[in-house]
């Protein structure tokens, strides 16, 4: 049995509103193994982003406990990499300098990590773009820079909050392939949030299904599709069985708004 990368016990989060409070998360318990690719799928407002923010140490839970690799989360930490829906690059920094941001913040020494950054840029197909500025790149390329930045300080896990949600469908499929390739090479734990059911099934070993009001995990599905998965896998009956199963979950709970 591998060690648990992420362990969440009875986690709750309440947001105060004018008419009382709204439960973004209600008593969620999840354990994720080291090296696993886990996708969380659910409609907007189901609390999946809240969950990620708690794991990233950006938000304190209202109740329950959450720990990463055996230590309780008490704020942001250095052994995770976060990728947001927008690339969130700094326009005054070159691609390389953006990638090295975690190194600068954490004082890890640019000299030592320069080759690491260059290797990673090569891995995501951005070699020779390191001197460019973010605004000279396409949306897909910018998001690849963001992924590189999340990997550069060699974190144990990646937290990704709908990282491809803003990309067009073709670029998105391409990025899914890229991410799978990077994950198979790096073998890091990935916690991947999406509202696309096919994307979740395509990428993950395990899909957690969440429904809103209150935010709950209603299903936990192991995806047994062989890797590397080509885009064609989406047309197979097995893939269809998984997506149908997940979609049925939402229909029972009152529909999916995305």
């Amino acid at each position: 049995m591998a060690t648990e990368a992420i362990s969440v016990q009875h986690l709750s989060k309440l947001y105060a509103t004018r008419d009382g409070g709204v439960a973004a998360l209600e008593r969620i318990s999840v354990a994720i193994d080291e090296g696993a690719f886990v996708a969380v799928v659910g409609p907007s407002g189901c609390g999946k982003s809240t969950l990620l923010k708690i794991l990233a140490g950006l938000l304190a839970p209202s109740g329950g406990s959450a720990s990463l690799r055996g230590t309780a989360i008490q704020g942001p930490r250095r052994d995770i990499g976060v990728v947001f829906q927008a690339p969130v690059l700094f326009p005054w920094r070159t691609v390389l300098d953006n990638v090295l941001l975690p190194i600068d913040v954490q004082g890890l020494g640019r000299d030592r990590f320069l080759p690491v950054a260059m290797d990673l840029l090569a891995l995501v197909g951005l070699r020779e773009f390191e001197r460019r500025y973010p605004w000279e790149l396409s949306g897909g390329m910018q998001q690849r820079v963001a992924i590189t930045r999340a990997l550069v300080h060699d974190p144990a896990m990646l937290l990704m909050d709908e990282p491809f949600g803003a990309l067009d469908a073709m670029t998105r499929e391409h990025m899914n392939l890229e991410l799978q390739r990077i994950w198979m090479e790096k073998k890091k734990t990935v916690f991947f949030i999406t509202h696309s059911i096919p994307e979740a099934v395509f990428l993950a070993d395990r899909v957690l299904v969440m429904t809103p009001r209150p935010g709950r995990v209603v299903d936990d599905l192991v995806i047994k599709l062989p890797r590397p998965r080509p885009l064609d896998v989406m047309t197979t009956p097995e893939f269809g069985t998984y997506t149908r199963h997940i979609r049925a979950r939402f229909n029972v709970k009152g529909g999916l708004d995305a």
Partner: protein
Amino acid sequence: MRSTKNVALSVLLFCASVGAWEGLVRLFEVPAFILPPPSQVALALWRGFSSGLYLQHLSHTLLETMLGFIAGSALGLILGTAVAMSRPVEFFLYPYIVMFQSLPKVALAPLIVVWFGLGLTSKVINAALIAFFPLLVNTMVGLRSADEERVSLMRSLAASERQIFWMLRLPNSLPFVMAGLDVAMIFALIGAIVAEFVGAQKGLGMLIQSMNFNMDVSGQFSILLILSVVGLLLNRGVMMIRKRVLFWDPSEKERIDQERVSA
């Protein structure tokens, strides 16, 4: 826009309007102390520069303006940062700053001249007081306008508040700060000239006033001409710095691209 044809047209338009001015003044025999013809303004300009008189006063006014600009901008930058980054400072200080700003600062000039004398100091202080506010406001807004997602990113990397300030908020505020500098530069020139009007021994403002007493209107016109050229050059100087510092700013890029297209 900048085709040979348009440039020629613009030069032609300029010559035509100057010519019309000259012609009309001569035709209707307008007295020179009301409106001098351009030829007399040019003559005054030439006399002023060849005698060294204008240069001496111009350099003095420029010195006042630059010192006032630097002092006022520095003050605005520091106070703006303090107000933006500290709630107590904002709460206790900002109301007074706003009150002070609603005051037409030109009205302060006589007092400042009484307090700091007829020399350089009163002019620099007056220029600085007027130049400081645009910097204060823009620095404040700029530092606070850091995108929430970027702040989240920095926090997720376990960055300290200090690092967030230096790596994110400060560079992020630069477009605002540069826009503030743009305005402050011209404001500093106004501040220096106004203080010279009130009481000075040197400077273009003082010169305008003494010419006014002597009904030397063409002399005044020649100095107004100098002042507008100086204002233009100072503004250009700030724009050049801005272009270098803000090469990454979308609005700046647009402008550069447009210039490239039209060049």
